Structures are given as structure tokens and as C-alpha cells.
């Protein structure tokens, strides 16, 4: 067995097993889906119905808090657990609120000894008739909550995304793999132009075709994901349009190749087109969405894969997923290249 030949392929397989098992089996953190009602008044009783996701309220002891922006807290008077995912919590909202305006936003925090603590920020709106800050601060400062920290690795909970946050590993890494393959294909096209060795062109061709597969899969998976988070199969988002555009450009590459019969001429012209298209146009796919509004993270003022969207638990699966998909892409394109090369060799022998 040739060690060098199989080593990285085995690594790819291991990475894929890790990505799929970790990406699908690690649970989401618990989170609050909905609270009802979302409005309350100072000095009155407030009965909150809390619907949560991925929780087991029947286990462990539970406390519910209301938190103001400046970290003043009140705690539930009593609570009523309906099932694992719903509970109703009753509060006595004090007469004054720790906020200078009559209407302000408050967060709800549920702390459970079994699930850990989770929050729905700014969802509750409380109103008051008159403002008395010093009195309010006295009324709201009796509580000093202690939260149990969870040691288990879990993916973050996001309100619209739910479990689809796992698609980060599958959908996003497809695009990374596509760009890696395109980059490699341009390198090989350049190599072909400078050395005239047909192997390089065949490599570039195989890589472009694999990249197109990944791009189409990225569009299809993205479209499915968008349907159930943004509400439609296709939104008029810059990033989507640019992705579709790059697919068009590479469709043009394929048509160009199909249109030329002479092998050397075909290689030369398509290599030139490949270098031209990727370097002149594709960078825009990265730059343009940053300048205009986009729904995607990292674009148009949305947070990038920084602190907000990517937490450490996601990263531990996301980076291996990207590496794995890139390696799979090179594996697939390598197979295609070898088949193509065999084809050429057999043709040579026959003629």
C-alpha cells in the first residue's frame, strides 16, 4: 500500500466522519422561543408564559429573572411548570422601573440547574407612569443571581435558525471548497500557459468542473436553507446574485471548451479565459456584498464570522468541515483528471 497516496484520503474520511457525527449529534443549547405576553406594567402582577426550545424543565430546579439593561434584576415569585418546554412564571413587577423612560426593554433569563442559564434579550417591554430612579434601584437590587455553567459542548441557539445552524458546516464549507478549487484551477491554467504541458490544462478543467458541482450544490442547499429562514427560495441578495453570476461565468467556460475541437487551441483559449474570468470578476463576489445590503453574515453591516455568529463550539466543527470539503474536492477532481488522462492515452494508442 502506497502510504503517501492513501494518507490524505484517509484523513479526509476521518474528518468527514467527525464533521458529520459532531455536526449532527451535538445538541443545541437550550433557548427561549417565545414569551407571552410581551408587555407588562410597573406595579402590577405579570404572568409570563415561556415557551422554550430543547429544555427539560421537569428536571432540576428552575428560576426565572427579569433583567434591565443596567443589570438590575427581579426574580419570580412562583412558577408553574407545564411540561419540559413550557412554564408560566409570575412576577410582582415593582412600582418603579430602573430606567429613565416610561417604556423600556427587558430581558428574560431562565436558570436551570439541569440545562444551565439562557436568555431572550430585550423581548419584554415594561411601562411605568412615573419615573423614580433611586427608588427603582432599591426595589430592583435585592437579587444577585448565580448561574450554573455548563461544561458540555453545545451549539448556540438562534431564534429563527434553530437546528439549521448546523448548515454552517455543510452549506458554507461548500463555497469555501469551490473557491479553493477555482484558485487551484487558475494556478494550473497559468502553469499551462507558461509551460504548454497539457496535464496542467486537464487538471484545471477537472477542478473547474468539480468547483461547478460544489457551486451548484451550494446554490441548492442555500436555496433550501433560505426557504425556511428568510421565507423564499431565492432572495434578491447580492451574494446570491454574485454566486449565480460566477456559475454563469464557468458555464461560459464549459461552453467555450465544448465549442473548440482542436486540443491545443482548446487548452490555450480556455486557460486564458479561466485566468481572466477568475482574477477580473470573481474578486468582486467578495468585495461587492460588503458595500451593499446583504442578508448574509459579514456583509452589508451584518456581523461576520466573528464573535456573533461563530462561537467556539461551532468553530470546532466548522474549520474541520471546510478542510474536509476542500480535500474531498481535490480528491474528486483528481479522479476526474485521471479518467480524462486515461482517455487521452487510450485515444493516442488507438489512432
Amino acid at each position, binding site marked *: 500500500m502506497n502510504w503517501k497516496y492513501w494518507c490524505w484520503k484517509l484523513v479526509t474520511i476521518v474528518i468527514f466522519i467527525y464533521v458529520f457525527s459532531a455536526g449532527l449529534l451535538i445538541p443545541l443549547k437550550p433557548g427561549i422561543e417565545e414569551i407571552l405576553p410581551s408587555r407588562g406594567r410597573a406595579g402590577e402582577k405579570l404572568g409570563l408564559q415561556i415557551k422554550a426550545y430543547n429544555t427539560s424543565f421537569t428536571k432540576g430546579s428552575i428560576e426565572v429573572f427579569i433583567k434591565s439593561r443596567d443589570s438590575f434584576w427581579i426574580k419570580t415569585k412562583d412558577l408553574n411548570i407545564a411540561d419540559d418546554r413550557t412554564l408560566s412564571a409570575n412576577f410582582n413587577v415593582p412600582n418603579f422601573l430602573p430606567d429613565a423612560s416610561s417604556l423600556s426593554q427587558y430581558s428574560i433569563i431562565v436558570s436551570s440547574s439541569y440545562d444551565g442559564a439562557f436568555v431572550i434579550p430585550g423581548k419584554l417591554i415594561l411601562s411605568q407612569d412615573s419615573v423614580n430612579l433611586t427608588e427603582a434601584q432599591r426595589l430592583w437590587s435585592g437579587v444577585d443571581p448565580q448561574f450554573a455553567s455548563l461544561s458540555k459542548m453545545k451549539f448556540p441557539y438562534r431564534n429563527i435558525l434553530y437546528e439549521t445552524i448546523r448548515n454552517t458546516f455543510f452549506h458554507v464549507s461548500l463555497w469555501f471548497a469551490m473557491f479553493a478549487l477555482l484558485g487551484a484551477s487558475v494556478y494550473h491554467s497559468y502553469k499551462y500557459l507558461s509551460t504548454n504541458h497539457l496535464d496542467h490544462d486537464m487538471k484545471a478543467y477537472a477542478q473547474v468542473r468539480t468547483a461547478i458541482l460544489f457551486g451548484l450544490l451550494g446554490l441548492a442547499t442555500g436555496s433550501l436553507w433560505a426557504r425556511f429562514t428568510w421565507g423564499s427560495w431565492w432572495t434578491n441578495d447580492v451574494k446570491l446574485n454574485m454566486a449565480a453570476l460566477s456559475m454563469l461565468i464557468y458555464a461560459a467556460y464549459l461552453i467555450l471548451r465544448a465549442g473548440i475541437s482542436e486540443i491545443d487551441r482548446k487548452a490555450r483559449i480556455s486557460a486564458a479565459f479561466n485566468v481572466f474570468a477568475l482574477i477580473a470578476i470573481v474578486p468582486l463576489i467578495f468585495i461587492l456584498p460588503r458595500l451593499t445590503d446583504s442578508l448574509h453574515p459579514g456583509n452589508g453591516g451584518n456581523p461576520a464570522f466573528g464573535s456573533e455568529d461563530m462561537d467556539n463550539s461551532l468553530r470546532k466543527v466548522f474549520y474541520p468541515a471546510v478542510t474536509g470539503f476542500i480535500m474531498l474536492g481535490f480528491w474528486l477532481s483528481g479522479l*476526474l483528471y485521471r479518467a480524462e488522462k486515461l482517455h487521452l492515452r487510450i485515444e493516442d494508442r488507438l489512432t
Partner: protein
Amino acid sequence: MNNKFLLLWLLPLTAGAQAGEDFMRSSGKIHVVYGVILIIFAGLFAYLIRLDLKIKKLENKQ
């Protein structure tokens, strides 16, 4: 013949669109993740089949 079968395939999809919608959104939208993985595998297998056919043709030539 083929077209008819295609249409038969599409029939439950259009008729039960609403039911499908609820299904996709149930259990924390996990079915969307399954759908995404299914698409990826379908694509990879389509690629494999094309490669297979190509190699088959080469074998026949030889």
C-alpha cells in the same frame, strides 16, 4: 412514458405543500439540515455516477 412518471412524482409535492411546510419546520427545522445533507449526497453521487460511466466507456474502448 418518462414524463408521466415525473408528473406522478410531482403530484404529492404540490398537493401536500402545506403539510410539507409544517413538516420542514417541525422539530427545530432539523429536516432542513437533513435536506441539505441529502442534496449534497445526491450531488456527490451524481458526480460519481458520471465518473463511473466515463470509466466504463474507457474500459469498453480498451
